[in-house]
């Protein structure tokens, strides 16, 4: 039987900050998530303009692994249940 908790999906959320260069955000997204430069740029702009962006969604364990990798790269990042 699958519990409700394991059926949920989790979002990896990256938050804006006032000092990080935009190009660094793009490089970090490309390296960690393997997205194209165009997609990374779109996500970076969403972070910049909206204050945050969901950059990946899926299983909780994987979301937490991604979050830690983004934090090690120095960006503000958390996980949360997909709304």
């Amino acid at each position: 039987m699958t519990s409700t908790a394991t059926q949920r999906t989790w979002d990896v959320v990256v938050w804006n900050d006032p000092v990080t260069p935009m190009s660094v955000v793009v490089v970090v997204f490309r390296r960690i998530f393997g997205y194209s430069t165009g997609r990374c740029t779109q996500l970076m702009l969403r972070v910049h303009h909206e204050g945050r962006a969901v950059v990946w969604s899926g299983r909780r364990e994987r979301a937490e692994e991604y979050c830690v990798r983004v934090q090690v790269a120095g960006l503000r990042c958390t996980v949360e249940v997909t709304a």
Partner: protein
Amino acid sequence: MARLFARQRGGGVLVRLNELGRSLVLDAARRVATAERGEEPAWAALLASPVDPSRADDPLVTLGRQREMASNAELVVLTAHEERLTDAEAWAWLSTLQVALRGLADEHAVTDEDALAAAPPEVHERVQALQALLFALASCL
């Protein structure tokens, strides 16, 4: 003006920093390594950032993150005077400089553009220097 970093055809990154630039990198890496040992209280919030703010993080996850940040910073200390970096070393430089930049911003309560503009000149100058290094390095990765 020569670029501070250049991508090499066979892989890796050529470092063209002068001694001042290298000392800035070394100092940033040493501060991150020191912070990981708990000796930079002003950086504690950054280094203890929650993964999931709705619950207490798994201590193993926190420890793993701490080890990886420290290992990156130590690699930067070891390679701060190298002329060429492997891709892994260049990634450690980028990550460590970025952590140092965020740590500096947190330490001086730079939470938005206005706070950055109002920061003391020496903080502003240091933020700009780290940003310039990060910008140049990111263009090679």
